[in-house]
């Protein structure tokens, strides 16, 4: 029996008032606060993109100056990377779901969880302050020596990223410990849902990679303030060293960004095909494999930067190995659909979109590992499109799919299914219209971060801008549909989708301590039945 039965009720109702939320240690409330914050920053970062895509309608000035354009793409990148997609799924959905899926009452360190949230908010505040404090235009990649201009806005951005990094490390740490020590009785590692395996792999990367970003930022700040001579070539420093340090974190970071999406996709496909994931162990191991291999490939961002041919060759060779675990996952998910019972509910539409977008994103990534071809494609729109296919078309789509999937559990409400489906289709069309043409633009030689462009690229830019309108409409429709359901949605049952993981074996929304009785696990996470012949 769980102690304190008298307050083990719907977590939304246990305590009232803003203060009860701000000092809570309940992982569910913390997850919801993260969710609201992240969606807010997604809209902010998206607005900057919307505006500069409008500017790109014509090759000449429409309404932004070159400096404003440069600042907008910088802010778009910094907000999206550090405030949305890196924290994203782990903070908003992971915090809510991980303890429940594992059968525990909370994460291992609830107070540390609240600390992570406050670090996130403080980092976000500093990042937003940097918008006001000046004109940061160095791109989210902050390459030296351009970022050594002692511009106060750039410096505040570096401080913000530093703080946000700690939030990320502590979240990963919390998840890994929770999975080691707090699994419910009977939940062996191989009975854990694949979402948890993905969170584990992500946690490894958060803990081991993010500290290197912290040092990179400290050194950049020291170089800016004191000119210590580590990155600035005029002072005896090496700008390539900055790139090595930066990408040592930022390459694992892109897997921190996408691996949680893999976890959600497994959950959605299993639930909406009523099937055990094909090749469960391969899928579980492949997340861990990606996490590990992801640490030794960072130099593939620097093939034309001036490293030696030997370094380039080694990084290219190792990068190809990241292709295999990703390919395995896509094949396994596809095979899971075979002989299933497939229901095209909203979350499933997002999961299928993920497969489409991630296949393109992954394929366009592998081509970049081909050294001779990368010389032509590097720093063009091809790269921009590739990373949007994975960071947005895969991660954000999985994120939105996951929000829809777990919405009834988190809020106790059902959203309008027809509107949800419609929004999902509009998002799919809008996303691909926006970004597919950018692949072509890039391979035709159009550089990235370009305010002005040659006339022959205008048609592609215009198609892309039209796509952004469609995408925005789809996203806002989805958001409004979800928010409206809070007031007018039907009451959600405990298990609206008939799924088998532990979070569906408790009420919607869950009680404060997640379960009324400690669950005992006797089978795997996707133990669906089959039709009688």
């Amino acid at each position, binding site marked *: 029996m769980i102690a304190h039965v008298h307050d083990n009720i719907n977590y939304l109702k246990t305590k009232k008032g803003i203060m009860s939320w701000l000092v809570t240690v309940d992982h569910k409330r913390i997850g919801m606060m993260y969710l609201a914050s992240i969606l807010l920053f997604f809209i902010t970062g998206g607005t900057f993109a919307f505006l500069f895509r409008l500017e790109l309608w014509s090759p000449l000035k429409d309404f932004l100056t*070159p*400096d404003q354009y*440069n600042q907008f793409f910088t802010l778009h990148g910094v907000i999206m990377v550090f405030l949305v997609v890196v924290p994203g799924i782990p903070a908003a959905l992971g915090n809510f779901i991980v303890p429940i899926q594992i059968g525990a009452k909370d994460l291992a360190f609830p107070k540390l969880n609240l600390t992570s949230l406050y670090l996130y908010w403080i980092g976000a505040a500093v990042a937003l302050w940097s918008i006001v404090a000046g004109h940061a*235009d*160095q*791109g989210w990649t902050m*390459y030296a*020596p*351009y970022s050594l201009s002692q511009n106060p806005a750039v410096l505040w951005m570096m401080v913000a990223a530093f703080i946000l990094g700690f939030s990320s490390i502590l979240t990963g740490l919390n998840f890994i410990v929770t999975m080691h020590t707090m699994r419910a009785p009977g939940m062996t590692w191989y009975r854990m849902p694949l979402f948890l395996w993905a969170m584990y792999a992500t946690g490894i990367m958060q803990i081991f990679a993010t500290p290197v970003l912290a040092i990179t930022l400290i050194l950049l700040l020291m170089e800016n303030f004191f000119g210590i001579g580590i990155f600035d070539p*005029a002072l005896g420093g090496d700008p*390539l060293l900055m790139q090595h340090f930066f990408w040592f974190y930022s390459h694992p970071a892109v897997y921190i960004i996408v691996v949680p999406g893999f976890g959600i996709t497994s959950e959605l496909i299993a639930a909406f095909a*009523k099937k*055990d994931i*094909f*090749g469960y162990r*391969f899928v579980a191991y492949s997340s861990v494999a990606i996490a590990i291999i992801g640490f030794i490939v960072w130099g593939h961002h620097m093939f*034309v*930067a*001036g490293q030696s*041919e030997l370094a*380039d*060759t080694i990084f*290219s060779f190792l990068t*190809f190995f990241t*292709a*295999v675990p990703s*390919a*395995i996952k896509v*094949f396994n998910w*596809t*095979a899971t*659909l075979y*002989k*299933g*019972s*497939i*229901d*095209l509910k909203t979350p499933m539409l997002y999961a299928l979109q993920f497969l*489409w977008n991630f*296949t393109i994103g992954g394929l366009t990534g592998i*081509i970049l*590992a*081909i*050294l*001779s*071809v*990368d*010389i*032509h494609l590097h*720093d063009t729109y091809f790269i921009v499109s590739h990373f949007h296919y994975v960071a947005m078309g895969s991660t954000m789509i999985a994120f939105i799919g996951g929000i829809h999937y777990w919405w009834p559990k988190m809020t106790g409400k059902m959203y309008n299914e027809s509107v949800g489906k419609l929004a999902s289709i509009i998002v799919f069309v809008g996303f691909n219209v926006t970004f597919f043409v950018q692949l072509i633009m890039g*391979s*035709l*030689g159009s*550089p*990235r*971060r370009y305010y*002005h462009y*040659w006339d022959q690229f205008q048609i592609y830019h215009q198609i892309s801008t039209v796509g952004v309108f469609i995408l925005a409409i789809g996203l806002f429709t989805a958001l409004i549909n979800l928010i409206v359901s809070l007031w007018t949605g039907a009451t959600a049952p405990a298990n609206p989708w008939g799924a088998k993981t532990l979070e569906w074996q408790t009420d919607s929304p869950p009680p404060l301590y997640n379960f009324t009785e400690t669950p005992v696990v006797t089978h795997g996470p996707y133990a*669906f039945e*089959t039709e009688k012949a």
Partner: protein
Amino acid sequence: MDNGKTFWLPEKASTFTSIVDPAFDLYLWISVFFFGLIVILITVFTFKYLRRRPDQLATAQITHNLTLELSWTIIPLIIVMALFFVGMKGFLHMRVAPSGYMQVNVKGQKWSWSFEYPAGAVNDTLVVPVNTPVKLAMTSRDVIHSFYIPAFRAKADVLPNRWNAIWFQATRTGVFPVECTQYCGTNHSYMWTAVKVVEPEVYQEWLANASDPGKGKTPEQFGALLYQKRGCNACHSIDGSKGVGPSWKGLYGRQETTNVGMVMVDEAYLKESMMVPTAKIVTGFQPVMPVFQGVLSEREIAALMAYIKSLK
């Protein structure tokens, strides 16, 4: 005239297009195949196994098939290894300039390019003869830029205090855009110039007429003059005999043993030796060379390098 532009790739104008474009096309077809396969399978499965009754369950819980799983692990692995070799082979060819190249030095700065020619000419567009290997030794005066000629499939970052080199061989005459492709500030997207590829006779004529800062010498001649005028001859011989400093005879392209290990004597090392002479000391010599930073102009450094290279 067909300039070779396709749906995906820009016009073709260098020998590199026969390396990059086939690799790109090969990969495109592999991608289309796998993407198509996945999309078709997903579509077929989705509609064939669509839930028709609300309580309908799966018809079978197939959770693994070792043959299938091993196949789709090993086959992609083989494919990507093949792609690696294709890429590496092409890349090494694209990185190492063949002998007999013509060199032009490139300076990037916010937000323009300047090209410095052997005879001392400085120009703002890159004029080169067709069907000739051209090597560009590039450096930046301020932040990191990147030199990109889409039609040649050639690109390299351009860094301050370092020399990065690329080479290419243009296959037809014409004017081809050159763009900066590493973000460098306000006018990053205006930092463009062009490569003008002309017949060799036209090139020679251009070069002879191009502005010349009064020397009228080949870079080797100018370098030979500087060798005496700047006092290099006090410490460095050109006949192989050891002086206060190493002899310049046969110096370029040699592997030297220094106090920090083996170094290849290339442009980067030569420049460093002039700018920061104490950085790497050849074994057997003292760190007594004066600093030439601020003393030698870029043109003079280039001339000296050309002279050193000519002393085989």
